[in-house]
């Protein structure tokens, strides 16, 4: 009786966790190891996370040119890179959209946007759209904070930059900054998963 009750509780816990999963069925979850990649940057060079020998972790952000929610977050992404690159957590931006269905998101336009806005971080092409499903990204912008460990790049936070996608001035919680600040102190991020409105990734 006791055992079957425990099994039932375990099942209920598992099913409620899957209900909370913000990234769809197959993406990364908190505590998973994130895969590295080799993707083309707007400067013409390939970038891998393993290139950053001195980094303690990464702020990986799926974002793009055309989505107004992404554009509304560009200054916030620049600010995150300015605040945390020197502390060991650089921003790595990745455009997951199909450039054929969305020419605004093609490589040439990525180069133009990166220059216009003065991106201080890599802005990479998810060529063939193979990486974003592995991460489980569903929208732009969509953030993954990763921490380097002896066993790999552990996912520490998934979700929104803050709690007001359309208007930064109304944001009262700054989730990514809070997560990285906590990691820098050797603590767990106060929130591990959050949600924000975004543009669906275009396949």
């Amino acid at each position, binding site marked *: 009786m006791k055992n079957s009750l425990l099994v039932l509780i375990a099942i209920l816990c598992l099913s409620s966790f899957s209900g909370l999963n913000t990234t769809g069925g197959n993406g990364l979850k908190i505590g998973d190891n994130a895969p590295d990649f080799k993707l083309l940057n707007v400067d013409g060079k390939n970038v891998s996370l393993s290139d950053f020998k001195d980094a303690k972790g990464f702020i990986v952000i799926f974002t793009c040119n055309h989505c107004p929610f992404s554009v509304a977050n560009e200054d916030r992404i620049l600010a995150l890179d300015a605040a945390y690159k020197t502390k060991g957590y650089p921003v790595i931006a990745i455009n997951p959209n199909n450039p054929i269905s969305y020419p605004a998101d093609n490589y040439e336009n990525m180069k133009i946007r990166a220059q216009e806005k003065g991106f201080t971080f890599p802005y990479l092409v998810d060529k063939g759209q193979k990486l974003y499903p592995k991460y489980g990204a569903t929208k732009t912008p969509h953030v993954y904070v990763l921490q380097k460990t002896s066993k790999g790049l552990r996912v520490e936070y998934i979700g929104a930059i803050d709690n007001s996608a*359309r208007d930064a001035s109304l944001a009262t919680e700054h989730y990514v900054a809070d997560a990285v600040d906590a990691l820098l102190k050797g603590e767990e991020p106060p929130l591990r998963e959050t949600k924000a*409105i975004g543009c669906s990734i*275009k396949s």
Partner: protein
Amino acid sequence: MIGMDGLTELLQGHSDTTYFINFWATWCAPCVKELPDIEELHREYAGQPVRFVLVSLDFPELLNDRVIPFVNNRGIEIETVLLNAPNENIWIPMVDSTWSGAIPATLIHHEDKRFFVEGKASKMKLNNGLKSVLN
């Protein structure tokens, strides 16, 4: 323009009405492609106790310059509101626990029956969702 209170009201609903709530934006291509199907359903269900609401997630400052002209130019007859509410991490899960926040997304509900879909859905899928909640 509605805020949290208006959204809560749409999500609580009313016992004599089925709610068909579509989250969209004027610049969102898959959302705009989905609109004609929703407009057809709106016409087909005229006279039935279904309240269709288009909840725009456009930037609030573009309400007068963009959203209202878009609705007028297209002759959209469905009730349209702009949701102006930060704290998305609170209200997105209120709409549906599985919603990542990407648009388009559609919630159909009546009392404890629910149908939710994230991403552009076919007219048949939306219609089946509506039928499943109505019956």
